[in-house]
């Protein structure tokens, strides 16, 4: 009797639909990230067509990036003849000596002679970037290209990064190329104001700052956690302190960034400069944003997470273990580091990994303390002191913000940002998966021992 009654209730269906809606959103979000992020490096078919509009008659060669329906009102607002909705396509034309290259929208109605000739070739050159060559002739030291605007161009072989007749490629060849492009994306430096090339410095910056943060936060956070749980007496003050430390985790990260800039960079960094780098003043060494301050700020930000995780891990360990240790005559320290800590280690590790994953996606506080859109050199080098703590760094999160919203070449930057976001997401996802594995493993161990 109860079941049918439940299913006549509109609230039940509303709650069920809400859950389904969230599920749908999750699916949509994942699909969007995967489709856009993974699609970037798949070799697209190259097209060639003639475009005739208002006295303009040109041959265009390139890749179709996107298509769009434009409504009548939008056409009217743009000051165009608006009798019916029109379709337009965004084409990537690459570099042209006439200066008409780059990304451009073309009205579908004005396009004729649409074809995909097999000899059309994508050429990537060191200085000029991508070119779409109609014809290709080998010369003594390189190639002679015929471009869509009728210009001839000579390209030296040693300046050539890529030579790709995409339309001739078979499926496996495309896949191989795709993987190669991904590898290049992950392992090279950016070019053309972050709108081309790879993201190696951002990956290095993210990993390095987060590792340094883990090194800083692990001992401090764990000691504070042990102190709070094992040594501090259970007074009202300690309860208050515990409550506030827990709630520091909810304080907006940007506030920690403000503290990082004011205290770490200006006060701490300024004093370090005065003490050790007085010769270089007024040129600041540590008194300006840099890697060390990024890591310290991140450490501060994630300290509550680690403390809470440590305390939680310690509180799960049965009291009987401690009492047994004391009964055998062990001191408190011995009980702690021989009995309790080995048991609580996975929980602490989980907390640390979660802290790292939170730090990896953090952007806002780091804008103040040392993350920049472009850092010319990596903070690691092969010569002493190997790690340059005072250097400014790039991170994946900031790249998403900066390339995504502030880039001058938005059409080129946007697909890249999806790829960067995917990389960041995979990094964070992997870290969390690891934490989840650890926690499950730990629970199973506990169940077996109890």
């Amino acid at each position, binding site marked *: 009797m109860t079941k049918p009654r439940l299913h*006549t209730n509109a609230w039940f269906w509303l709650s069920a*639909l809400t859950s*389904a809606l969230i599920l749908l959103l*999750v699916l949509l979000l994942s699909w969007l990230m995967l489709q856009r992020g993974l699609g970037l490096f798949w070799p697209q078919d190259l097209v060639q067509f003639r475009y005739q509009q208002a006295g303009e008659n040109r041959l265009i060669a390139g890749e179709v990036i996107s298509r769009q329906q434009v409504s009548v009102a939008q056409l009217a607002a743009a000051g165009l003849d608006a009798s019916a909705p029109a379709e337009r396509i965004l084409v990537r034309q690459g570099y042209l000596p006439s200066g008409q290259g780059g990304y451009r929208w073309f009205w579908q109605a004005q396009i004729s002679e649409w074809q995909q000739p097999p000899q059309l070739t994508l050429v990537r050159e060191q200085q000029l970037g991508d070119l779409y060559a109609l014809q290709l002739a080998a010369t003594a030291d390189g190639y002679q290209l015929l471009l869509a605007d009728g210009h001839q161009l000579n390209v030296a072989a040693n300046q050539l990064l890529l030579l790709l007749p995409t339309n001739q490629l078979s499926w496996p060849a495309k896949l191989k190329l795709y993987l190669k492009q991904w590898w290049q994306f992950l392992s090279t430096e950016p070019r053309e104001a972050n709108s081309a090339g790879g993201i190696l410095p951002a990956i290095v910056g993210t990993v390095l700052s987060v590792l340094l943060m883990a090194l800083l936060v692990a001992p401090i956070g764990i000691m504070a956690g042990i102190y709070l749980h094992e040594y501090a007496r259970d007074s009202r003050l300690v309860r208050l302190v515990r409550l506030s430390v827990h709630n520091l985790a909810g304080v907006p990260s940007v506030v920690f960034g403000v503290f990082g800039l004011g205290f770490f960079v200006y006060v701490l960094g300024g004093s370090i400069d005065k003490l050790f780098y007085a010769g270089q003043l007024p040129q600041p060494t540590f008194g300006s944003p840099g890697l060390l301050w990024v890591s310290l700020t991140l450490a501060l930000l994630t300290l509550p997470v680690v403390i809470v995780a440590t305390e939680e891990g310690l509180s799960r360990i049965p009291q009987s273990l401690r009492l047994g240790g004391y009964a055998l005559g062990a001191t408190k320290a011995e009980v702690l580091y021989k009995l309790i800590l080995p048991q609580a280690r996975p929980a602490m590790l989980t907390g640390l990994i979660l802290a790292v994953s939170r730090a990896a996606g*953090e952007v806002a506080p780091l804008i103040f303390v040392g993350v920049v859109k472009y850092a010319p050199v990596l903070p690691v080098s092969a010569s002493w002191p190997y790690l340059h703590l005072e250097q400014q760094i790039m991170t994946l999160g900031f790249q998403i*913000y900066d390339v995504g919203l502030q880039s001058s070449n938005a059409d080129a930057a946007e697909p890249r940002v999806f790829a960067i976001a995917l990389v960041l997401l995979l990094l964070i996802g992997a870290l969390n998966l690891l934490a989840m594995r650890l926690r499950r493993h730990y629970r199973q161990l506990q169940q077996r021992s109890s």
Partner: protein
Amino acid sequence: MTRQNSPIPAQDNRLTTNKQRASRRRWLDRLWYLLITSAGSSVIVALLAIFFYLGSEVLPLFKPVSISTPQALAEPLPVATTPRVVLPDHALLPEFEPVFVLSEPQQRYLLLAARHGEACLLDRTRAEQGCLQRLSLTDRTVDLTALVWLAGQRSLISGDSSGQLKQWFLLPDQQGQLRLSWVKPFSRRAAAIQTIAAEQGRSGFAVLDSAGNLSLFYANLTKPLWQGPAAVDTQPGELHFLPGNQRLLFSNASGQQQWLIDNRHPEISWRTLWQQVWYEGWQQPEYVWQTGSASAAVQGKYSLVPLTLGTLKAAFYAMLVAVPLAVLAALYTCCFLPEPLRSRLSQLIELLALFPTVIIGFLAAIWLAPALEQHLLALLCFFGLLPLLVFGLSWLWPRLPLSLQKLPGSGWELLLLLALLAAVGLLALYLGHTLQLSLFDGSFRFWLNSQGIDYQQRNALLVGLAMGLAVMPLVYSVCFDVMSQIPRSLTLGASALGATPWQIIQRVILPLSVPGILAAVMLGLSRAIGETMIILMATGNTPITNFNLFEGLRSLTAALTIELPEAAVDSSHYRVLFLVAILLFVFTFTANTLADLLRQRLRRNFQRLDG
């Protein structure tokens, strides 16, 4: 071997090593204790010190002005006097005897004022036409005793013999004609005003009255920042600020005296931060956040009202999206889903919290913003179709054959609903598109604009949706936690007494978890208020004061992120931004603490109910 040969010394030996080892162990124990205690407590002290450090940066903003006792100067300092303005031909204004002659920065207009306060605004290029505007700066019964420009030369301060101080703006009216208009009085001085000195580069001024009292004012505030006896001789003289505004000079026939003034941030007070201020060159008092102007003559405008409203606006819309989604989903997963599916789904939703907010902000700005602009009507249609779907299902389902009704509870239900929702979504897209074409000339957005509703591409609706999605997992997980902690004895008891599942939810689960839901909402709100990247990317970051769904906003966090890297260290701007950080800190900290206390109490209640 040796032990067997001579057992007694060996025994002794072992005793001493045992004793040594015991003392070493005790020593180690103490060391360990000291290490952990000192490290732990210092970390905690350091964490809590963040608040005090931020406070120490802000405190100078509210420090009262202090002035030293006057010191006589042995050597007179040269004082920069304003160049004398050349009067136009006096015959043009026969009945006028100007005492004060002031010229505006472009040197085109002249302001002449006579002894009783009659004033005349004169266009130098058309002097033959006479005064553009005639007005009285006093109420005619008293004498005008002082008239000075404030820095920037856009507003005037007048003082008269009754001790009255007034501010006047030189503003163009609707015809573009420059006019002098009365703005506000300052609090009255006890005696006649003797002399007024304007600060350099900012809008403060010092006033000396004939009773020998000195007062310091700032143009935005009617009350003086400081007042007290000047302790100068009564001979009339002039006041001057020296560059930097740290020294005030009084010079008369008998010599010079100076005061050292500590008045670093006169433009900031609780009043200017939270109330409407009439800034120089504005038509009326307003809440304005406008910083970082290149010219020093333009006042910095630090009203926190637009930023706070922006934050609240974004948080409000985000909560409007997040709370219903989270609470309903928690109810469904907790009460109706069978076990393996239940934890899967809750894990999946909590996985959403892992999305870095910068990615959500990017998607909102780049993907959702244009899509929303194009399909706004479809979104409205979707929300219109949703109740239809809900009521349709609740009507249709019980009428289906029993074999089909067996589906629910096995997870098929969710899949079915997913497909239904997707279908409804597509239908809404189609409907929106057709409606748009037939009713709104192909674009709802342009229609909205033509109706006078300003639609910006990056608006509060977008932020609400994106941030709602970001906050939802947090609210959900707290709600889910609370609902699954409700003792089973209660729900089982209700069921045994014949309550239907929905009655159990209505009478047992919901009332019991209301404090928990409240805690979840508070946590979500504090998260939404502290959220930075989504707001930064998905709004236009314009500091405006309204709650329009289709306009942008600028939040406290976004202002911090954009402006702090550019603010000069220890300037008023820098310190106000620190104040913003403190506000965020205090608010989120309080909200989180309250939520935490609520949850703790709830947990205790449940334990008691459970017996």
